């Protein structure tokens, strides 16, 4: 039987959840025994297999149209979709931008900041993505498992991945459940 395929990606987050994944240290070798790691920010494959993967893991919330596309693609191609970390599950710290709105944030960063050259303008090249409200993944696509934490411990990520890789349902409680 072929090893289950896992794909991961990060959206509007900080990469901390992926760093926490790496924090499982040597246990990563165990995970690579159990599962086939496909696309991921740390490999050179760029998106989940068109033929589908068993588990899709997304870190980060959604704050632009590009993130929306990633989320939709992952939902479409993953049998099981995992929202990893507070940004993915709740919106997280980047959701603080919802209080001031995109325009005000852009104005402060690119026009008003004290270190900016006088006359600076907000970038507007069509190559750049369009900003939206910052959202949790479940606001855009259905999620099968929410793994909160900022970031969730390596122990939690190891548990979740190894359970899913072995066809079981992870249950998060006690030491495996924290929102900070």
């Amino acid at each position, binding site marked *: 039987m072929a090893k289950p395929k896992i794909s991961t990606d990060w959206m509007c987050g900080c990469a901390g959840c992926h*760093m926490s994944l790496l924090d499982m*240290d040597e246990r990563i070798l165990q995970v690579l025994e159990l599962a086939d790691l496909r696309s991921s920010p740390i490999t*050179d494959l*760029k998106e989940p297999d068109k033929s589908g993967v068993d588990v899709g893991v997304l870190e980060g919330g959604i704050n632009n149209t590009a*993130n929306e596309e990633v989320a939709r693609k992952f939902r479409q191609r993953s049998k099981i979709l995992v929202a990893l970390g507070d940004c993915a599950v709740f919106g997280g710290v980047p959701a603080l931008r919802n209080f001031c709105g995109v325009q005000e944030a*852009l104005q402060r960063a690119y026009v008003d900041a*004290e270190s900016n050259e006088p006359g600076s303008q907000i970038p507007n090249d069509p190559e*750049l*993505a369009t900003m939206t409200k910052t959202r949790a993944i479940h606001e855009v696509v259905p999620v099968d498992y929410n793994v909160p934490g900022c970031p969730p411990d390596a122990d939690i990520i190891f548990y979740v991945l190894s359970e899913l890789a072995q066809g079981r349902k992870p249950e998060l409680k006690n030491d495996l459940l924290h929102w900070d």
Partner: protein
Amino acid sequence: MTAQKITIEPVTRIEGHAKVTIHMNDAGSVDHAYLHVNEFRGFEKFCEGRLYFEMPSITPRICGICPVSHHLASAKANDMLTGQTPPHPANLLRELMHMGQIIQSHGMHFFELAGPDLLLGFDSDPATRNVVGLVSANPALTVKAVQLRKFGQEIIQTLAGRRIHPNFAVPGGVNKALQASERDGILKGVDAATQTIKVGLQIMKDWAEKNIEDINKFAVFPTGYFGMVTPSNGLELYNGNIRLIDRTGKELECFDPATYLDQIAEHVEPWSYLKFPYYKKLGYPEGVYRVGPLGRLNVADKIDTPMANEEHKIFKTLSGGRPVENTLHYHYARLIEALFAVERVQVLCEDKDILSTDILNTRKNWTGHGVGVLEAPRGTLIHDYHADENGKLTKVNLIVSTGHNNWAMSNAVDSVAKTYVHGPEVQEGMLNRVEAAIRAYDPCLSCSTHAIGQMPIQVEILAADGKLIRTLQRDSA
């Protein structure tokens, strides 16, 4: 033949979200290549109205690879804002945490992010040109690499109780003293960490010997160099003045980082969310400079720990005494810094005050404005806060490490594209080299735009009228 645009999207094995567009001219050579950094979150705005003492907890969420850098820079800004000068033992502990950060970040970058290119080759199969491939190719080395990162992360965990997004530094000091058994635990790991870094150095040197041609033509260009130094111009990563030297190595400035607005400004381009800092007196782009390992080792006259100092002496000979301009030597410089950090860990742990409980000064001398600066793994990190008399932030300015390197990265992309990419048949390995140019700077694009993101890669070769000629995918599965 009509002009083409090649798009590389996303750039992988970096932190953050970048996209490269390569504009080809009629003759089939590269006209210009652009590095678009494509994400934005807005910390500088949404932190307005928050309390200053929340910032060491909020700003680490800018980046999960270097949260400690933000945490400490934020605490330093708060020290100045409240006038609470930390006692000496607190500074020792903060620097110890910072060294843990440097070790884990540099270690991870060399072995796991950039390593596959060096160890497996720029042109090797993209399906295995990553850390998973390294596991098969050299399991023993991969384990060592994992353990090196673990050593750094465990220092952070010992001090703060967790590895990522710590709660440790507070205005005026830190919140937890170090126990003797914890200190001993850290010291036990020093030797193995040193050995692993030396293995890395040897790998780098061997590779450099075999690839000297690439080293000398891959994104080699002059810039200024910018980094923190000790009072005698030794390498310094936690606290000191900033030194800026020009392309010949001559000192242009040596200034108190709190006065950074007098020295540098940021230029904005419409095609990237990442701004371009530069030295005001020379203007943009004349005044661009590089930060991070290459920048810092060029700026420093020496390193105050012995093993790293020996390597630094060799490093200084690479360009006959002039500043080293080769982008690929970032990897070498990065390892020398990691060695310095491990040696520093030993020095700090052996300091007689490292176990002291005199770790917090609560006496305030309110100023309402604080600038906290240190050398994050990727370069000089600046946090600048203004608060009202009740402690609510009214203005926040952040210039984040990788940002200073923006012009250099763009230029590296441009230079490598022009050197290695020749149309119309574009090989995958050529494109990987363009990405490798970016990777050498170990960019933290989340940090630098205070944002992050990714998109699936697809290389589209378009005719000038936008008609799709060919598509190259790197994700075929």
